[in-house]
């Protein structure tokens, strides 16, 4: 842009309007946070106003009832391992399929891509059967393996598209210098994939951290519950106790909101790039 556009009164009016809409968007958060520090009676009498007295012990109670550190760790370990594995297997497969476009690999690529139209709900019933036959039920690693299966199509597709822009010459000269196929991939190609790896990491994290249905089907033991599962069972027990329920919700929402505020530039850039390509 050659010159900064003038800040007219029309723009000012637009700015006010946009801020008002944003406040409307934020109202639900206000209600939840402000009521999460009220006593039960206070909450029932006046749900809209400022707390009569701040009851921080709602949070300490919920922290213990929900076993929040445990649920957080479960979510974290599952998201971390699923991400790590997905990135390795889909980057390697995408690389091989792109650089060796044999008939087999073209068929495999088509198979991976066409599976993206299968909604999870349409295969979840036999999936439970397969998972229990292969020992994936009721185990965090089993759930991680399930995410490998369900995430690999999209991740492979994104890596495949991105790799096309990496010039072949770099790899060829490395081969001439005596680099093994693994060396070429891990030392040369994989570092060049970094922008796409970050995008994939963020998209996968949002999906896996927030996922509810797959963990609900696979994890039954109370010690294995992720944050959404734990919130669900907590709500089942404390349906009418809004003071505790809301504190639990704030705890459940907080990690993802913090993560988003830290990574928002990358997340928003990733979505824009993904949509333009997709």
């Amino acid at each position: 842009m050659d010159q900064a556009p003038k800040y007219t009164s029309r723009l000012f009016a637009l700015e006010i309007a946009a801020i008002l809409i944003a406040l409307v968007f934020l109202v639900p958060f206000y209600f939840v946070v402000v009521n999460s520090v009220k006593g039960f009676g206070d909450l029932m009498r006046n749900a809209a106003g400022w707390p009569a007295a701040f009851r921080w012990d709602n949070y300490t109670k919920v922290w213990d009832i929900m076993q929040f550190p445990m649920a957080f760790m479960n979510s974290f370990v599952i998201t971390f391992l699923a991400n790590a594995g997905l990135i390795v297997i889909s980057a390697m497969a995408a690389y091989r399929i792109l650089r060796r476009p044999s008939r087999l690999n073209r068929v495999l690529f088509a198979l991976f891509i066409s599976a993206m139209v299968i909604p999870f709900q349409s295969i979840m019933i036999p999936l439970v059967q397969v998972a229990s036959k292969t020992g994936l039920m009721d185990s965090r690693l089993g759930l991680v393996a399930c995410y490998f299966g369900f995430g690999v199509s999209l991740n492979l597709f994104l890596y495949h598209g991105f790799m096309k822009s990496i010039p072949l010459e770099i790899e060829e000269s490395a081969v001439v210098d005596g680099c093994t196929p693994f060396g070429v991939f891990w030392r040369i190609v994989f570092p060049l994939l970094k922008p796409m790896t970050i995008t994939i990491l963020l998209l996968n994290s949002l999906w896996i951290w927030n996922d509810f249905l797959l963990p609900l089907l696979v994890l039954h033991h109370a010690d294995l519950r992720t944050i959404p599962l734990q919130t669900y069972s907590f709500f089942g027990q404390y349906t009418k106790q809004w003071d505790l329920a809301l504190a639990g919700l704030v705890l459940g929402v907080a990690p993802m909101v913090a993560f988003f505020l830290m990574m928002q530039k990358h997340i928003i850039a990733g979505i824009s790039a993904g949509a333009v390509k997709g």
Partner: protein
Amino acid sequence: MPHRSRRMAETALQLVFVGPALLFFCLLVFVPFLMSSYYSLTDWNGVTSRVVWTGLDNFRQIFLHDDVFRTSFWFTARYTLATVLLANAVGFTLALMLTQPLKTRNWLRTVFFLPNVIAGLLLGFIWSFIFVKGFAAVGDWTGIGFFQLPWLGTAATAFWGMVIVSVWQMSGYLMVIYIAAILNMPRELTEAAKIDGAGRFQMLKSIIIPLVMPAFTVCLFLAISWSFKVFDLNLSLTKGGPFGSTESVALNIYKEAFQNNRYGLGTAKALVFFVIVAALTSLQVFYTKRKEVEI
């Protein structure tokens, strides 16, 4: 023999690079998909090993006798239509506003996107509180009839409750895509139109909308696919109620299999669901490709 050992090395590389991805994919997506097709033709109950072939009985049941499935399908279709139109309208309007040189636009973008990073399940719980307690409090305070409705208590308010939450959640995501598309418009065209004296409305109608058409396609079908598959939000906000009036197809399939233990019938419904989603998605790809050629 060097030729043979090279082929073996190639095979080994193929196995190491593609093998793991293929293994997990086959085990967890491909095999369940094939099993699903088979079980849909049986009366399997998920527990016993006795599986009786029943031919097309399940599909006959679904299309001719299952009123609950028909209700859930009709709800899902109406919910999808309302959500897709409203979320795109809101998302596009926000994008138009936030591509103006506003001082707070980065902040605003963050705020509008925020609902999208929260799990659908938790959003449903949050909003069930807002509808039941928050709206009531605002209604008492302001006396506006809209807030005094029995939210989530009747079929109509539960329907619009679902739509409101979904629009609130999705529009920020769609906004990000629209913003990227608007910023990608070739500057020469917009500048030329301004010099030729195009008004704001004309600019929108003749320049912006045609140029961001591919983004419309992407956003429309993203929203269709999310809305049609809605499950978490449905479970936590209305549980399909009141009286099953807001039960989505995904929730119906889940209940059929895991609560009624009619796995055969559940897989048949899941297969019908797959065909519809696959058709919608393929239509998206086809339509997007055609639009791309035109641009």
